[in-house]
Protein backbone atom coordinates (compact mmCIF):
# COMPACT_ATOMS: atom_id res chain seq x y z
CA UNK A 1 0.00 0.00 0.00
CA UNK A 2 1.15 3.46 -0.80
CA UNK A 3 2.47 5.00 2.40
CA UNK A 4 1.42 8.46 1.28
CA UNK A 5 -2.21 7.46 1.56
CA UNK A 6 -1.69 7.07 5.30
CA UNK A 7 -1.03 10.78 5.78
CA UNK A 8 -4.64 11.94 5.29
CA UNK A 9 -5.78 9.04 7.45
CA UNK A 10 -3.40 10.12 10.22
CA UNK A 11 -4.63 13.72 9.99
CA UNK A 12 -8.21 12.52 10.11
CA UNK A 13 -7.56 10.39 13.17
CA UNK A 14 -5.83 13.20 15.07
CA UNK A 15 -8.69 15.55 14.21
CA UNK A 16 -11.22 12.94 15.33
CA UNK A 17 -9.52 12.57 18.70
CA UNK A 18 -9.66 16.32 19.28
CA UNK A 19 -13.29 16.55 18.22
CA UNK A 20 -14.24 13.51 20.28
CA UNK A 21 -12.66 14.95 23.42
CA UNK A 22 -14.42 18.23 22.66
CA UNK A 23 -17.77 16.45 22.71
CA UNK A 24 -17.48 15.88 26.46
CA UNK A 25 -16.34 19.34 27.40
CA UNK A 26 -18.77 21.97 28.55
CA UNK A 27 -18.15 25.20 26.62
CA UNK A 28 -19.89 27.12 29.37
CA UNK A 29 -17.17 26.19 31.82
CA UNK A 30 -14.55 28.87 31.57
CA UNK A 31 -11.51 28.20 33.72
CA UNK A 32 -11.29 30.87 36.39
CA UNK A 33 -8.09 32.89 36.59
CA UNK A 34 -8.82 33.32 40.31
CA UNK A 35 -7.87 29.76 41.25
CA UNK A 36 -4.87 29.85 43.62
CA UNK A 37 -5.22 33.62 43.89
CA UNK A 38 -6.28 35.53 47.00
CA UNK A 39 -10.06 35.75 47.20
CA UNK A 40 -11.40 39.21 46.30
CA UNK A 41 -12.37 40.95 49.49
CA UNK A 42 -15.88 42.07 50.33
CA UNK A 43 -17.86 43.36 53.27
CA UNK A 44 -21.58 42.91 52.72
CA UNK A 45 -24.80 43.27 54.64
CA UNK A 46 -26.14 40.06 56.11
CA UNK A 47 -29.41 38.80 54.70
CA UNK A 48 -31.04 37.99 58.00
CA UNK A 49 -29.50 40.78 60.07
CA UNK A 50 -29.30 43.85 57.84
CA UNK A 51 -27.64 45.74 60.70
CA UNK A 52 -24.61 43.47 60.54
CA UNK A 53 -22.01 42.95 57.85
CA UNK A 54 -19.82 39.99 57.09
CA UNK A 55 -16.61 40.13 55.10
CA UNK A 56 -13.81 37.97 53.80
CA UNK A 57 -11.65 39.16 56.72
CA UNK A 58 -14.03 37.51 59.17
CA UNK A 59 -13.34 34.15 57.53
CA UNK A 60 -9.54 34.33 57.72
CA UNK A 61 -8.00 31.36 59.44
CA UNK A 62 -10.64 28.85 58.42
CA UNK A 63 -11.57 26.92 55.32
CA UNK A 64 -14.92 28.08 53.98
CA UNK A 65 -17.24 27.80 51.01
CA UNK A 66 -18.78 30.67 49.15
CA UNK A 67 -21.95 29.61 47.40
CA UNK A 68 -23.43 32.11 44.97
CA UNK A 69 -27.20 31.72 44.79
CA UNK A 70 -30.38 33.66 44.15
CA UNK A 71 -34.08 33.13 44.56
CA UNK A 72 -34.55 33.64 40.81
CA UNK A 73 -31.94 31.01 39.93
CA UNK A 74 -33.51 27.83 38.63
CA UNK A 75 -30.54 25.49 38.79
CA UNK A 76 -29.89 26.57 42.39
CA UNK A 77 -32.90 24.42 43.25
CA UNK A 78 -31.04 21.47 41.80
CA UNK A 79 -28.06 21.74 44.12
CA UNK A 80 -29.84 23.09 47.16
CA UNK A 81 -30.75 19.75 48.80
CA UNK A 82 -27.06 18.80 48.62
CA UNK A 83 -26.08 22.04 50.33
CA UNK A 84 -28.71 21.55 53.03
CA UNK A 85 -27.30 18.07 53.60
CA UNK A 86 -23.74 19.43 53.69
CA UNK A 87 -24.83 22.16 56.12
CA UNK A 88 -26.22 19.52 58.50
CA UNK A 89 -22.90 17.66 58.46
CA UNK A 90 -21.22 20.80 59.81
CA UNK A 91 -17.94 20.09 58.06
CA UNK A 92 -17.30 23.58 56.80
CA UNK A 93 -18.93 27.01 57.08
CA UNK A 94 -20.94 27.86 53.97
CA UNK A 95 -21.35 31.53 53.22
CA UNK A 96 -24.20 32.28 50.84
CA UNK A 97 -23.88 35.17 48.43
CA UNK A 98 -27.41 36.19 47.53
CA UNK A 99 -26.59 37.50 44.07
CA UNK A 100 -28.64 40.29 42.48
CA UNK A 101 -31.66 39.36 44.52
CA UNK A 102 -34.38 41.06 46.50
CA UNK A 103 -33.56 40.37 50.16
CA UNK A 104 -37.22 39.62 50.85
CA UNK A 105 -37.37 37.10 48.00
CA UNK A 106 -34.06 35.57 49.12
CA UNK A 107 -35.25 35.13 52.71
CA UNK A 108 -38.52 33.61 51.51
CA UNK A 109 -36.64 31.18 49.28
CA UNK A 110 -34.49 30.00 52.20
CA UNK A 111 -37.55 29.55 54.43
CA UNK A 112 -39.14 27.46 51.74
CA UNK A 113 -36.16 25.35 50.68
CA UNK A 114 -34.06 25.20 53.84
CA UNK A 115 -31.14 27.35 54.90
CA UNK A 116 -27.76 25.60 54.73
CA UNK A 117 -25.78 28.80 55.15
CA UNK A 118 -23.75 29.79 58.17
CA UNK A 119 -24.47 33.33 57.02
CA UNK A 120 -25.92 34.78 53.85
CA UNK A 121 -24.84 38.16 52.58
CA UNK A 122 -26.57 40.32 50.00
CA UNK A 123 -24.87 41.37 46.77
CA UNK A 124 -27.71 43.57 45.60
CA UNK A 125 -26.08 45.04 42.49
CA UNK A 126 -23.79 42.11 41.66
CA UNK A 127 -20.50 43.97 42.04
CA UNK A 128 -18.97 41.41 44.38
CA UNK A 129 -20.12 38.76 41.94
CA UNK A 130 -18.12 40.47 39.19
CA UNK A 131 -15.08 40.69 41.49
CA UNK A 132 -15.31 36.93 41.96
CA UNK A 133 -15.74 36.33 38.24
CA UNK A 134 -19.28 35.03 38.63
CA UNK A 135 -21.10 34.61 35.34
CA UNK A 136 -23.53 31.79 35.92
CA UNK A 137 -25.32 31.20 39.18
CA UNK A 138 -24.94 28.89 41.05
CA UNK A 139 -21.21 28.92 41.59
CA UNK A 140 -19.29 27.62 44.56
CA UNK A 141 -15.79 28.52 45.70
CA UNK A 142 -13.56 26.74 48.20
CA UNK A 143 -11.37 29.21 50.09
CA UNK A 144 -8.49 28.07 52.28
CA UNK A 145 -7.28 29.34 55.66
CA UNK A 146 -5.02 31.93 54.03
CA UNK A 147 -7.96 33.29 52.06
CA UNK A 148 -6.85 31.79 48.74
CA UNK A 149 -9.43 30.39 46.31
CA UNK A 150 -8.60 26.72 45.75
CA UNK A 151 -11.52 25.45 43.71
CA UNK A 152 -14.49 26.76 41.77
CA UNK A 153 -17.58 24.81 40.88
CA UNK A 154 -19.41 26.37 37.96
CA UNK A 155 -23.06 25.50 37.85
CA UNK A 156 -24.88 23.29 40.32
CA UNK A 157 -22.88 21.08 42.67
CA UNK A 158 -23.33 17.44 41.73
CA UNK A 159 -23.16 14.58 44.26
CA UNK A 160 -19.89 13.45 42.61
CA UNK A 161 -18.34 16.91 42.72
CA UNK A 162 -19.31 17.22 46.39
CA UNK A 163 -18.08 13.82 47.57
CA UNK A 164 -15.11 13.34 45.28
CA UNK A 165 -13.77 16.87 45.00
CA UNK A 166 -15.17 19.45 47.39
CA UNK A 167 -15.35 17.50 50.66
CA UNK A 168 -11.91 15.82 50.23
CA UNK A 169 -10.38 19.19 49.31
CA UNK A 170 -11.96 20.86 52.36
CA UNK A 171 -10.62 18.14 54.66
CA UNK A 172 -7.17 18.38 53.10
CA UNK A 173 -7.12 22.16 53.47
CA UNK A 174 -8.38 21.94 57.06
CA UNK A 175 -5.50 19.60 57.90
CA UNK A 176 -3.01 22.18 56.69
CA UNK A 177 -1.88 24.80 59.17
Amino acid at each position, binding site marked *: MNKKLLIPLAIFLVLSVFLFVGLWRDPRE*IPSPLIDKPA*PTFKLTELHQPGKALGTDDMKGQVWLLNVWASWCVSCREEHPLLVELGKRKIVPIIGLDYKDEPVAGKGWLTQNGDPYTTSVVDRDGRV*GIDWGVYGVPETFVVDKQGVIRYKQIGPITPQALEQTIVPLVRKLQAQS
Partner: protein
Amino acid sequence: MSGAVIRALMFGLAAFAPLAHAADAVPTEKDAVAASRAVKLAEQLRCLVCQNQTIAESNAELAGDLRRQVHDQIAAGKTDAEIIDFMTTRYGDFVLYKPPLKATTVLLWSGPALLLVAGFGVLAGVLRKRRTVGEPPPLTDEERARAKRLLDGDKPEDKP
Protein backbone atom coordinates in the same frame (compact mmCIF):
# COMPACT_ATOMS: atom_id res chain seq x y z
CA MET B 1 -61.04 58.35 40.12
CA SER B 2 -61.51 61.53 38.20
CA GLY B 3 -59.89 62.13 34.84
CA ALA B 4 -57.73 64.89 36.22
CA VAL B 5 -56.20 62.63 38.88
CA ILE B 6 -55.46 59.91 36.35
CA ARG B 7 -53.86 62.43 34.06
CA ALA B 8 -51.75 63.74 36.91
CA LEU B 9 -50.64 60.19 37.80
CA MET B 10 -49.72 59.41 34.21
CA PHE B 11 -47.75 62.60 33.99
CA GLY B 12 -45.94 61.65 37.18
CA LEU B 13 -45.08 58.21 35.81
CA ALA B 14 -43.86 59.65 32.54
CA ALA B 15 -41.58 61.99 34.46
CA PHE B 16 -39.93 58.99 36.14
CA ALA B 17 -39.67 56.91 32.98
CA PRO B 18 -36.04 57.88 32.21
CA LEU B 19 -35.00 56.40 35.58
CA ALA B 20 -35.97 52.96 34.34
CA HIS B 21 -32.97 53.03 32.04
CA ALA B 22 -30.57 54.65 34.45
CA ALA B 23 -29.29 51.31 35.77
CA ASP B 24 -28.02 50.18 32.39
CA ALA B 25 -24.68 51.49 31.20
CA VAL B 26 -25.89 53.18 28.08
CA PRO B 27 -23.18 55.77 27.68
CA THR B 28 -24.36 59.14 28.83
CA GLU B 29 -24.48 61.98 26.39
CA LYS B 30 -22.37 64.07 28.78
CA ASP B 31 -19.03 63.10 27.36
CA ALA B 32 -18.84 61.95 23.77
CA VAL B 33 -15.23 60.75 24.07
CA ALA B 34 -15.98 58.67 27.13
CA ALA B 35 -19.06 57.28 25.42
CA SER B 36 -17.18 56.17 22.34
CA ARG B 37 -14.44 54.66 24.54
CA ALA B 38 -17.07 52.72 26.50
CA VAL B 39 -18.59 51.36 23.31
CA LYS B 40 -15.18 50.48 21.87
CA LEU B 41 -14.24 48.60 25.03
CA ALA B 42 -17.59 46.87 25.25
CA GLU B 43 -17.11 45.63 21.69
CA GLN B 44 -13.84 43.96 22.66
CA LEU B 45 -15.27 42.10 25.64
CA ARG B 46 -17.11 38.83 25.41
CA CYS B 47 -20.34 38.26 27.26
CA LEU B 48 -19.73 35.23 29.47
CA VAL B 49 -23.37 34.17 29.37
CA CYS B 50 -24.05 34.25 25.64
CA GLN B 51 -20.55 33.52 24.54
CA ASN B 52 -20.79 34.55 20.92
CA GLN B 53 -21.82 38.10 21.67
CA THR B 54 -19.87 41.03 22.96
CA ILE B 55 -21.10 42.80 26.05
CA ALA B 56 -22.05 45.66 23.74
CA GLU B 57 -24.47 43.39 21.86
CA SER B 58 -25.76 41.15 24.59
CA ASN B 59 -28.95 41.67 26.51
CA ALA B 60 -27.87 39.34 29.30
CA GLU B 61 -28.00 40.91 32.71
CA LEU B 62 -24.32 40.24 33.32
CA ALA B 63 -23.47 42.07 30.10
CA GLY B 64 -25.39 45.06 31.41
CA ASP B 65 -23.47 44.92 34.68
CA LEU B 66 -20.14 44.69 32.85
CA ARG B 67 -21.08 47.64 30.62
CA ARG B 68 -21.83 49.56 33.78
CA GLN B 69 -18.42 48.58 35.17
CA VAL B 70 -16.72 49.82 32.01
CA HIS B 71 -18.70 53.02 32.19
CA ASP B 72 -17.99 53.63 35.87
CA GLN B 73 -14.30 52.94 35.47
CA ILE B 74 -13.99 55.34 32.56
CA ALA B 75 -15.74 57.92 34.72
CA ALA B 76 -13.22 57.13 37.48
CA GLY B 77 -10.39 57.96 35.07
CA LYS B 78 -9.11 54.45 34.41
CA THR B 79 -7.21 53.81 31.19
CA ASP B 80 -8.41 51.28 28.60
CA ALA B 81 -5.58 48.92 29.55
CA GLU B 82 -6.56 49.08 33.21
CA ILE B 83 -10.18 48.26 32.39
CA ILE B 84 -9.19 45.32 30.17
CA ASP B 85 -6.92 44.15 32.98
CA PHE B 86 -9.81 44.41 35.45
CA MET B 87 -11.86 42.10 33.25
CA THR B 88 -9.13 39.53 32.55
CA THR B 89 -8.15 39.17 36.20
CA ARG B 90 -11.75 38.20 36.93
CA TYR B 91 -12.83 36.28 33.86
CA GLY B 92 -9.56 35.26 32.20
CA ASP B 93 -8.46 35.79 28.62
CA PHE B 94 -11.73 34.25 27.51
CA VAL B 95 -13.40 37.59 28.11
CA LEU B 96 -11.32 39.09 25.30
CA TYR B 97 -12.59 38.64 21.78
CA LYS B 98 -9.02 38.94 20.51
CA PRO B 99 -6.85 36.48 22.42
CA PRO B 100 -3.44 37.87 23.48
CA LEU B 101 -0.29 36.42 21.94
CA LYS B 102 1.43 34.29 24.57
CA ALA B 103 3.09 30.88 24.85
CA THR B 104 -0.22 29.01 25.04
CA THR B 105 -1.71 30.83 22.06
CA VAL B 106 1.26 30.74 19.67
CA LEU B 107 -0.25 27.86 17.71
CA LEU B 108 -3.59 29.64 17.54
CA TRP B 109 -2.00 32.75 16.06
CA SER B 110 0.54 31.07 13.80
CA GLY B 111 -1.73 28.16 12.78
CA PRO B 112 -3.32 29.80 9.71
CA ALA B 113 0.07 30.97 8.39
CA LEU B 114 1.59 27.52 8.99
CA LEU B 115 -1.32 25.87 7.18
CA LEU B 116 -0.90 28.26 4.26
CA VAL B 117 2.82 27.47 4.00
CA ALA B 118 2.09 23.73 4.24
CA GLY B 119 -0.56 24.10 1.54
CA PHE B 120 1.92 25.78 -0.81
CA GLY B 121 4.42 23.02 -0.02
CA VAL B 122 1.96 20.32 -1.04
CA LEU B 123 0.97 22.28 -4.15
CA ALA B 124 4.63 22.66 -5.20
CA GLY B 125 5.20 18.93 -4.68
CA VAL B 126 2.17 17.97 -6.75
CA LEU B 127 3.16 20.34 -9.59
CA ARG B 128 6.72 19.01 -9.68
CA LYS B 129 5.49 15.44 -9.87
CA ARG B 130 3.03 16.28 -12.64
CA ARG B 131 5.86 17.73 -14.74
CA THR B 132 7.95 14.55 -14.53
CA VAL B 133 4.88 12.41 -15.28
CA GLY B 134 4.37 14.49 -18.46
CA GLU B 135 7.55 13.07 -20.10
CA PRO B 136 7.15 9.33 -20.80
CA PRO B 137 10.28 7.16 -20.78
CA PRO B 138 11.85 6.63 -24.25
CA LEU B 139 10.81 3.50 -26.18
CA THR B 140 13.09 0.52 -26.46
CA ASP B 141 14.05 -0.74 -29.94
CA GLU B 142 11.71 -3.69 -29.60
CA GLU B 143 8.74 -1.46 -28.71
CA ARG B 144 9.60 0.85 -31.58
CA ALA B 145 9.58 -2.05 -34.04
CA ARG B 146 6.24 -3.31 -32.72
CA ALA B 147 4.67 0.13 -32.96
CA LYS B 148 5.92 0.44 -36.52
CA ARG B 149 4.34 -2.89 -37.46
CA LEU B 150 1.01 -1.87 -35.90
CA LEU B 151 1.04 1.48 -37.64
CA ASP B 152 1.88 -0.12 -40.98
CA GLY B 153 -1.24 -2.30 -40.75
CA ASP B 154 0.43 -5.69 -40.30
CA LYS B 155 -1.37 -8.26 -38.21
CA PRO B 156 -0.04 -8.39 -34.66
CA GLU B 157 2.24 -11.38 -34.35
CA ASP B 158 0.86 -12.41 -30.98
CA LYS B 159 -2.62 -13.09 -32.33
CA PRO B 160 -3.60 -16.69 -31.63
